[in-house]
Structures are given as C-alpha cells and as structure tokens.
C-alpha cells in the first residue's frame, strides 16, 4: 500500500510543503527518444510537439527529412507534419491549442493539433531578410504572440497574427554577447528582457533605447545565462554561469533572495512554481540532466535525482515535468490538504477526517474526534470539500467527500450547493484525466478555462460522446456539440443516405433544443454535397431557414414547394423574386403552376408591376375568364369599352360564360344603336346602359323607340312598367300615370305607383292607387301617405291589431285627439271581440 494519501510524495521547502503528483504515465512510441528531441508542450495538459534536435548527434533512423510529431499527454500521436519548409527555429503553442512554428526567414506557420495547416504569416520583411536566430512564442494581452531575434540582434515582436509587428529598441552598446532573453507581458504591452554579461536589459517597445540594470548579484559571476519569468509575469529568476540564482520581482526593484546552487553544469530549464491557492509564486524548479532542484524565496532547497532528460511545462498552479517514463506535476501543497493530512495536524478538518474513519470502523473514538472539532465543524467541512478538489487520486477524493458528507450532518441548515458543485466537477475532471481523453487538468485550471472552452476542446478532439455527457452533467447546452458531430460526419462520411439517417437519429431526440439542420446542410453544400444538403434540408421544419439555402443551391422547385407549404407569403415572394432573376419566364410558369399559393402571389406581383406579364400567365393557364376580365379592366382604364367588346366577349365565350358573352354582344349592338339614335334625336345616349337608354327615350317621349329596345333586349315587363311609372312621375305627368295604370293590369302591382307619387310628396295622387294595392299593405301605405283616418279604418276592417298598436304610437296620431280616440276605440273593440 502506498504511503497514506500520497503524503509520501510531499517534501518540505521551508516553510512550505510541496508535492509531486503523478499523472497518467505516458506511453511514448518506441521510436521516440526524448533525449534527441526538441519538445514544445502546451499548458493546461494540452498536446505536445516534438522534433529532432539538430544540435544533437543521433543514430539515423528512417528518413532524414525532419518531421514534427504531435502527441497528447499520454504519448498517443495525434498528428505529424513533414517539415519540408526552411529551417525551423522555434515551436510553441497558442492559447487555443494551435502549434506555432517559426522559420528562419521569419515565416510563421500555424497548425492545429492534428497537424493540419491553418494559417501562415510573416514577422515583417526586415526580419525575413536578415534571418532570425531565435524565436519565442509568448502570451500577450491580445492572444498568443511571437518574438524573434534576428542575426543582427534586433528583436521584433508581434502580439498576434493579425497585429502588425513592432521593432523593439536597439540594444545599447553592442548586441553581441547576449546570452538569453525572455518576453514579459505587462498590461497591454509586451517587452523583452535580455541578459548580457552581468546586466539585464529591458527593451520596451516605443522607447528609443533599452534600459540597463546591472549589479543584481552580490556574489561574483561572469554572465547571466538563463532568464525565467513566472506564469503570471510578476516574478523573475536569473541564473548565472557560476550557478548563482537570483529571485525577484519582474521590475527588478525587489530582490527575494540570492542562492548559490553550487552546480557548475548548465541547467536545462528553469520555471517558477505558481501556488495553487493564490496567484503568487514562492519557488522555482530548475532541471539539470538527471537532477531536479527546487529553491524558494527563503533560499531553502530540495532536490531529486531524475531521468536524464526532462521537460518542464509551467502551469497556472504548478509545473509539469515530462520525461521518457513519467509525467508528474510539482505544486505547492494547498493549505487545506496540509491541514487534513499533515502529521499531528491540530486542525478541525483533520479531526473530522479521523472521526469519519473511526465511524466507518464503528469505533467509539469517532465521537471523541468529533467533539474535538465540533465547534468549528463548518470550517472542517468546507476544507474537506476544497481539499477534494485538489486531489488527483479518486480514492482520496472519495474519502474526503465522504468526510464532508459525514460532517454536513452535524451542521444545522447546511447549504449543500458547493458540495454538489465540486462533486459534479470532480467527476468531469476524472473523466478528462482518463488516458483516453488525456487532458490532465487541475480544478483551478478547469475553473479558469471555464466549461465551455473545455467542451470545445473535447469537440475539437472529436470526443463527441464524452463532450455531450459532460455538457449534460454540467447542465450546459449540448446541441451545438451534436451539430459539430454532424459537421464531422458530413465532411468525412461519403455515404449520403447513411449520414442523413445517422444525423436524424441523433437529432430527433426531443431534448435536443435549438438545433438546426440548415447549418449542417450549409456545410454539406460548401463541401459540394448538394444531394446530402437537400436530404438534410428536408428534415428542417422551419421553412424560413431552409428556403434561403435551397435558393442558394438553385433548387427552385424545392424552394417553391416548401415556401408555399409553410404558408409564409413573404417567403414565397422572396423565392419568386429570386426565380425571376435566374429563370426563363416559361420555366418559371411551369415550376409554380403546381403551387397555387405561389401562382397567386406571382399574379399579385405582376398585377402591381407588369400587367402584360399577367396576360402571359393567364394564357399559359388557359384561364379565359381571367383573360376576359383582364381585357375588361384594361378597357375600363383606357375608357374604351366599345372597341374591346368583341375581344372580351370572345374570351367569355371560350370560358363558357354564356350570359357574360351575350351581354357583351348586346352591349356591342346597343352601342351601335345608340350612335344612330343620338344622331337622330340630337341627344347623347352613347355608353348608357339599356335601362338608361330606354329611360332617356321615354323622357324624350319616344315611346315607340323605347318599346323597340325593350323588345330587342328582352327587358322584362316589370322593369319596363317601373320605367314608365318613374319617368311619368319624374315629369309630373300624373294624368298620364293614371291612364297608364288603367291601361292594363300592372305586373308590378300598384304599390310602385303609390311610391313614386309619395316621393315628391304628392299624397293626393298616391291616394288614388292605395285601394288597388295588396290588402295587407294598404294600412302601411295609408300610414306612409299620412292618411291616418283611412289607415285606422283599413286596419280595423282587416282586424289587424298589430298595425293598430303601431299606429297608436305614431306621433301624428298621438297629437290628434280625435284620431287617437278612434284608434283606441278600434283597439278596444277588436280586443273585446277576440
């Protein structure tokens, strides 16, 4: 059994404890020997790139062509780049896990972690011409930058790929003998620190010349050979050829300590160890071949024998050490972990931990331990939860959480949110640390990156299933992950049907929200797979989304179909306008004729913009009635009905609108007749209707002509009588009217006679005709003619109580005492008879 809870890996650098944590052991390919390699590793447990170190003698294996190989932290190769460009000077990783390779001619190549080239840019012409000797990839305020030093000793700095490069000031005096340099980012600016002999030179962009700081060391030395800046760009470490180490603030105003390592060999790397519970750094780790040294501000040290070759990766909360056979992390021991596991710890969390252990052993001692921490139990629980988050070993995590759970029970009203949150995140972290995923992140790194970034990194590594599970577990949206998965399928699976099937299968799950088939179809279209795109679009229920893409692909028939199906007229119009621009008119007609809504909308557009076009459609549709009306409307607009009548009539005939056609023919005849009549009687009859023509003739007294037209146009008796009556009344020919009424039995009864008389108020004339009206209308007409006496009599005769009641209410009767009395007596008579 290992020493309890990994406390064996603890070591002390006074006054603090540090620890080494073992991460998943890498399993490098057999042909990879780190000893002969240059390695660049990305922080946050990211990938690492290796290339043969040209300065070392190597037994030649395989091709001599240099090759950059990319691995994940467990040693699985994710990609490689055959380097057939110029001389590679330096490599580094960006904060988005892209590999940045800087070439001698100041060209910068950017690759993704699978070795696919993504971008290429240059650090200016001057650097390109003079060639570069060294390059550094650094984190700037604007992303990941690149700095290069040219053969002439100039330093150029580019804060990210899109910003222009800046030339740093001259190095004062001479540029030779510069032994080391480093880039520091401070606020929005990045500057260079350069070690030359016993001085440190600061080159700040925009200043004309660098500032020199000398005499940092007390003890004698020849020159500074290594500079290291902490992860947070706050602290500086310098190392001299005599093995002296200087620790201080990055502005060099404050010196923490000076330390003599006593070693004469060249260090390989030097990195600050960031603290895990705050953003400070107390110690540096220095690697030598087969030897690792840790020195802190208090000039205390600790050392370990190690593998012959190792690479240090500075993280935000520690330093990772990658060797041929191991992968470890050195970090300062978090206070809470120390409180619990330190020997003889007097902290409540420690007692609680013991209490829980004893409780599990069913020992009475549990209570004793508990009583020792009872008063500060909430602190104990909090510390246990916190400590669990720092642990890599799942067993330790479990026992700490179990302790926290045990302790919780003794706190009244404890809020379990933090406990739940940590537990959730730990599960995710453990998954990420699994060798299949190979992203060994600490809790702090996880929180710093935030889950969305982690998810996108998982997606980028094509761990779709895990990503979805993680998203579900953390209650984050997951549909976009599926979308990425679908993109991947679209790009890589050649079988259309299969892809569409797989995608629908995954997408039909109702919990997947806000996912769009269109985005995927768009990708398919871009990849030149239109058939697949259409298959996918058919699955998208929202027409407003998939129609534009169909238009883009020029699939007009489908676009029309789905736009009309959606019922969205605006969308239909959009499709039609697009089609009009790209299609022959006849094709357009053929395409839309099966879609009534599209056809109607098209007609509407044409009606407003292009009437002639409308005619074209009617013709294609052979819609003769519409053609007739089209001509009709045009004729009315041009005020020229006469010459168009035959066209209109023909169209009506073809449309089997018999009455309409007949009426057109009649009108045409009438127009001719009107011309002769107008000439004959010197009147203007042109354009009048049959009815009006007759009326005019009657008013002129041309009864014969009127009769003739009446017969020709089959004007019914009723209407002719009406005309006669109306014209006679209009001309106030009351006698003739009376004569006319007696000429024949009226086909319209005698009420019209009453009506026309009453219109100009001639009640006396009206009176003559009322007796000849229908019985049940007499009362009404008497009343309307204001013959109330008669009305009452008549109503009484007819025993029409209802009318009498109505009459009783009439104002004229109410005001006339006699009439009212008469009405009342009639009513009472009738009422009694009932």
């Amino acid at each position, binding site marked *: 059994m290992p020493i309890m809870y990994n406390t064996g890996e603890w070591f002390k650098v006074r006054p603090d404890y540090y620890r080494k944590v073992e991460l998943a052991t890498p399993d490098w390919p057999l042909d990879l020997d780190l000893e002969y390699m240059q390695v660049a590793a990305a922080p946050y447990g990211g990938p690492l790139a290796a290339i043969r170190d040209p300065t070392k003698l190597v037994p030649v294996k395989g091709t001599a062509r240099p090759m950059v190989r990319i691995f994940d932290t467990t040693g699985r190769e994710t990609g490689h780049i055959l380097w057939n460009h110029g001389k590679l000077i330096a490599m580094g990783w960006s904060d988005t896990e892209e590999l940045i390779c800087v070439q001698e001619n100041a060209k910068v190549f950017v690759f993704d972690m699978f070795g696919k080239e993504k971008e290429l840019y240059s650090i200016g012409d001057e650097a390109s011409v003079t060639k570069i000797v060294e390059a550094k990839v650094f984190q700037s305020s604007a992303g990941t930058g690149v700095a290069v030093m040219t053969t002439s000793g100039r330093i150029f700095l580019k804060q990210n790929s899109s910003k222009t490069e800046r030339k740093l000031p001259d190095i004062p005096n001479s540029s030779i003998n510069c032994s080391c340099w480093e880039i520091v980012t401070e606020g929005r600016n990045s500057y260079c620190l350069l070690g030359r002999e016993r001085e440190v030179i600061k080159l700040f962009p925009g200043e004309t010349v660098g500032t020199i700081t000398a005499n940092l060391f007390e003890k004698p030395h020849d020159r500074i050979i290594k500079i290291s800046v902490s992860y947070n760009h706050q602290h500086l470490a310098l190392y001299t050829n005599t093995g002296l180490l200087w620790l201080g603030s990055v502005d060099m105003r404050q010196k923490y300590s000076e330390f003599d390592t006593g070693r004469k060999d060249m260090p390989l790397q030097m990195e600050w160890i960031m603290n895990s519970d705050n953003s400070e750094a107390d110690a540096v780790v220095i690697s030598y071949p087969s030897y690792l040294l840790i020195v802190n501000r208090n000039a205390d040290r600790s050392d370990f024998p190690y593998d012959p070759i190792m690479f240090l990766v500075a993280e935000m909360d520690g330093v990772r050490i990658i060797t041929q056979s191991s992968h470890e992390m050195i970090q300062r021991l978090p206070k809470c972990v120390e409180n619990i596991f330190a020997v003889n710890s007097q902290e409540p969390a420690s007692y609680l931990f013991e209490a829980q252990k004893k409780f599990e052993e069913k020992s009475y001692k549990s209570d004793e331990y508990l009583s020792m921490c009872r008063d500060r139990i909430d602190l104990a629980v909090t510390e246990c939860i916190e400590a669990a988050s720092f642990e890599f070993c799942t067993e330790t995590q479990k026992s700490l959480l179990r302790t926290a759970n045990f302790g919780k029970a003794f706190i009244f009203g404890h809020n379990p949110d933090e406990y739940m949150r940590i537990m959730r995140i730990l599960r995710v972290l453990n998954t990420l640390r699994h060798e299949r995923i190979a992203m060994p992140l600490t809790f702090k790194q996880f929180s710093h990156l935030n889950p969305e970034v982690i998810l996108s990194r998982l997606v980028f590594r094509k761990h779709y299933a895990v990503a979805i599970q993680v998203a579900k577990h953390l209650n984050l949206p997951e549909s976009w992950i599926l979308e990425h998965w679908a993109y991947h399928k679209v790009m890589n699976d050649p079988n259309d049907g299969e892809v569409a099937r797989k995608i629908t299968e995954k997408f039909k799950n109702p919990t997947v929200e806000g996912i769009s088939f269109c985005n995927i179809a768009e990708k398919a279209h871009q990849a030149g797979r239109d058939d697949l795109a259409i298959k996918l679009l058919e699955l998208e*229920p929202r027409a407003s989304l998939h129609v534009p893409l169909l238009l883009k692909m020029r699939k007009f028939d489908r676009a029309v179909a789905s736009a009309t199906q959606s019922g969205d007229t605006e969308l239909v*119009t959009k499709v039609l306008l697009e089609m009009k621009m790209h299609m022959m008119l006849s094709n357009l007609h053929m395409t839309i004729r099966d879609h009534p809504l599209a056809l109607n909308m098209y007609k509407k557009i044409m009606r407003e913009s292009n009437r002639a076009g409308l005619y074209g459609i009617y013709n294609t549709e052979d819609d003769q009635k519409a053609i007739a009306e089209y001509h009709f*409307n045009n004729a009315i607009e041009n005020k020229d009905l006469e010459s168009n009548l035959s066209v209109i009539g023909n169209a009506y005939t073809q449309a089997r609108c018999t009455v309409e056609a007949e009426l057109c023919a009649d009108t045409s005849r009438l127009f001719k007749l009107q011309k002769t009549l107008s000439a004959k009687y010197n009147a203007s009859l042109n354009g*009048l*209707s049959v*009815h009006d023509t007759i009326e005019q003739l009657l008013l002129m007294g041309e009864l014969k002509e009127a009769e003739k037209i009446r017969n020709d146009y089959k004007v*019914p008796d009723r209407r002719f009588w009406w005309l006669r009556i109306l014209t006679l009344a209009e001309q106030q020919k009351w006698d003739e009217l009376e004569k006319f009424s007696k000429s024949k039995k009226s086909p319209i009864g005698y009420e019209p006679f009453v009506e026309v008389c009453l219109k100009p108020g001639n009640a006396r004339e009206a009176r003559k005709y009322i007796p000849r009206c229908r019985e049940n209308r007499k009362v009404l007409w008497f009343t309307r003619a204001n013959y109330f006496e008669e009305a009452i009599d008549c109503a009484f005769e007819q025993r029409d109580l209802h009318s009498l009641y109505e009459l009783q209410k009439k104002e004229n009767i109410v005001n006339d005492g006699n009439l009212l009395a008469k009405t009342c007596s009639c009513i009472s008579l009738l009422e009694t008879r009932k």
Partner: protein
Amino acid sequence: MRTQNRASDMFPYLRSPGQRFNLQLLQEAAYRELVQHLDRIEGSTIIVLDEAMIGPFELVTKPKFFADRGIRLVALKPDLVFPKDIKNIVYVLRPRVSLMDQLVGHVKAYGQVGGRQFHILFAPRRSCLCVNQLQNKGVIGSFGRIDELSWSFLPLDADVVTMELPNAYRDVSIDGDTSSLYQVAIGLVQLQRLYGRIPKIYGKGVQAQRVWDQAKHLGMEEKSLYNGDKGAIDQLILLDRGIDLLSPLATQLTYEGLIDEFYGIRQNKLNLPADLFSSDKTAEGRRPEEHLLETSEKKTILMHSGEQLYAELRNKNFNEVTKLLARKAREIHTQMHATSQDKTVQEIKSFVENVLPQLMAQKKSTSEHTTIAGLIHEQVNNTTFSDDLAAEQEFMVCADIDKPSAYIEDKIASKADLRNVMRLICLQCAAASGLKDKLLNHYKREVAQVYGLEVLLTFSNLEMAGLLHPQTDSRAYAVLRKTLHLTVEDNVEVDPKDISYVHSFYAPLTARLVELSLKPLGWQTLKSQINNLHGPTFEDFQAQLIGIGGRNAGSTVSEGSLLHVPRVVLVCFVGGCTFAEIAALRFLADQEDNNVEFLIATTKIINKNTFLDSLMST
C-alpha cells in the same frame, strides 16, 4: 419600468375587473416593440404614418408618448415637407408596393440634408417586394433601418383584439393572397407567448384549418410554450368567415352595430359633426388629445367599455336602448334634484364635491347618446330601411327563396344603390345555399342592363369570394336554421333570453356554434350537425411537452379541478366579425350558467357596408 407602467395606465379600459386575462399586457408588448425600434434611432425624429397604420397606432399609443420623446407624427402624403433640423424620418407602413413611390419622392426631395436618414418600419412583415422597389429606384442607400413591427393582434377593448386588416377576407378569397392567414397564425402564437399555451382547439372552415396548421407549425419552434402549464386561455375556437356569409351581410340591430353601419366606428371612436350636439360642450366637449393627428370640426365620442353608459347600451337591441336612455335621464334628474330638499350644509358640500361631478359626467354622456340614438332612430324609421329589413328577414326564413325576388327586381328597376342590391342578392344566395344558374343569370342580366356592363366584374368578384355560387344540394342554411334554431319565432328584443335578439330574430351562425360548443360534449354533437357546411371541422389538443421540464408534469391536474372558475375561450374570426356577433358572444358570457369568458379575436370588425365595399372594389 416606470414608463411602461404609465403606458398601460393610459388604457384602463383594456382590463375589466375580475377578468382572467389582461389585454394591457398585449398593449404593453406592442408599445414596447415600437419603443425598442425607436430607441435604436438616434437624434431628432419624425414619424410618418401610413393612413392604414393610424388606427393600429391609436390602439396602443397615445400622443403623449411621442410628445414626451419629442417625436412628431405626420400622415403619409406625397407632398410632405420635413423641417431641416430633423435627422431621422421613420416611416411606419403597411407593406404595400404602391406606397414606395411616395417614399422615393421624399428621398429625392429631402434626402440631401447632411446626416439625414430615412427608416422604415413595416407592419406586420418586412416586404421584400417593397425593398426591391426601393432598390430599383436607386434610393435604398438613403435608408438606415428597414425593420418590421410585428404587430398582429392589437387590443381594441377589454375582450376584443383585432388585426385591423380590412381586406383580409378579400385578399384570401379573391386574390389568393393568404398573408393575412399567416399573420393570424403568427398572432395566435404571440398571444400564446403572452398568455400561455392553449390546450384545446376547435375550428371550422378551410381557412381556419389553414391558420391552425400554420400556427401549430410555428408554435412547435417555441418549445418553451409547451413546457409550462396551460395559460390563461382554456380553449380556442377558430371560425372561418366563409362558413357564415349571411351574418356579415345582414343588418345589425344592436345599438353599436347600427352606429357602425350608419356612421362607422373607428378604433373605439365615433366622429360626428359637432353641430349635432347641444352646445354645453364649450371647453371639454372635444378631446383633441385623443387624436394622434388633426381633426376638423368633428365631435369625437369614445366608444369602449371604459365608458360606463355605452358599455351598458352597446350590445342591446336598439328598441331597448331608447327605453334605457329614458330611464337613465329620469334617474339623473331625480338625483340632481334630490339636493334641493332639506339637507345640511355638510351634506350639500359632500354632494357637490363627490357626487355632482360624476352626475355631470353621466348627464353629459346620456345627452350624447340620446343625440346619437335620435339620429339612429330617424334612419331606422326611414321606409327603405324597414323595407330592406323586411326583405332580408323574408330570406332568413327561407320564404320563396328560389324565385327571383320581386323586391330585388323592384330595387333594380328603380336603380337603387348597387351595393345594397348586390347585398340582397348575396343574402338570398346565402340563405338558399346557392342560386340556381337560371336565377343567377337572370340577376346578372337585370343588373347589367340597368347599371351597365361593368357590374359583371363585381359579380365575378363576389363569385370568387363565395358570396355568389351555384346551388348545392345540401341546403345547409335551411337545415341548420331548423337544427340550430338560427331563427327564433317568439323573439324578444327587450330583456332577451337568446342571442337571436341581435338581428331581431336571427342568431348569427358563428355565435350559435360557439354557444352550442360550450355545452358538455358540445363540439362532438356539433360535428355531425355542421358537416353540411363547407370546409373541415377539426379539433386539436396541445398537451404539455413531457421530457424536459419533468417537474411541472404533476400540476396539470388543476385543469379539471377548478370548475367554478370561468373558462376563457378565445373565439377567433378569420376574415372579420360584426359588432352583432360580438354582442351575441358578450350576451353568452353574461349568462351565468355558461360560466365562460370570451376573448374575441378578429382580422377586423366589419359590417355589411365595409364588407361589401372591400369585396366589390377592383
């Protein structure tokens, strides 16, 4: 937040006490959308309103809102003059291509001022045709924002929402332009967004079905709608205007219906010549602040449920109104004169301070309505009105329905108003469930010979609109008249017991359908009775989507258990409804047995005149 509170406070009548849904929400939502658009525009602004948008604006905004923001409002005219210092000109338009020429003119005349920008808010949809037109004319560059103001249903009264689309029925039936149907679907989704998911849906008619299909489809994209509990609305009844073309053609006999038919009520307002009213109005007779834009010498009377007296009168049969008014006048009289009797000074003081202003207001509105009722009374007693009504009612009882109507023939012969003649022919057609070819041709010939050949186009429009059609075997109206008791014999106009009072003895089919569907198993029974009506009868359920918000699943039990709470039924008329139909529904809601509240949604409130005008125009 405070401005929003104020916004809804200006429309107190949109919320009636005890009502389960609050239309102020809808007003606020619409107002907020407008404000959001205006907030994106910086600098001095003038709003140019399309004439068709003035109504919708008045429904959700007040002049004060714009005055507070320093925004001027003008109506869209070709020859507008914009002051030099105005930076932004915002057009609020219905998407009509014909308007674009005016915009082009404005841009060419006033676009040169430095920094000036034009903007368009299309309501309710951004029209690519219009934008296209501006592009073709080469002025699109002068336009900054071209957005849409997605106003669908706007609150008209505490229980009525309207889209203010007067041509909805015409566009669909004659031009085949179904934009308004899509807009209703959008409106239904918007209502559900505000008031929650509607669990039950019933509907009748082709277009109603279409609207529902689209609304359902649109709703599916909003999963959140289906996750929550059901909302404030329990049921939706979608009715296609096409299933009942008789009701909108018939003369309405309610107070409100008659006013609308004779004088036209626009957005709760009635404009009448000021000199008709007695002259006590001096200072506060007119209410100019109620107008977004100018008015001439007109008196404006507010017509909504916030006006106490009107709320009482509007839905009554006109014959009852005169009586009610007389009683009201007597009441006020006695109350006014109650003071003269012996009272302490204190009592008189409190009377003068508290009761009197109220009484004065009552007196004023009573006098106003007495004047209006007087005007209506004159019109109603006109002989043509009563003759028309008599003819109409003959049709309603299917008397001599298949023969040429002598009354119509006489009307034609005396060359009466064409619209009225066509209305009567359409009425006969509706009541007879179609006209025999011979009869229809007879009418065509008669009308064409009298009014000229052009009326053929009118006939054609009415045929396409389904108002005139060949006879079908089913005789739907004649059957339904019996089975659904559409005409009632012992009708009462005063204190009625049945909705038929709104047309004296005829109950609008739509309202009757709603009434019957309220009964237990109502819709199931109805389904078999109305299958002779054209178009599908459908029902649908929108259940809660299970799977995501699993937690809420338990709470659906409450749907059935709260029986004493009145149901809220949204009755949606696709293609417009009349005031008489609204009155009938309000009558139903007032019957306690029904235990129901209605929210009435329509594309526009129509009457026999406006309906026919929209159809007859070319």
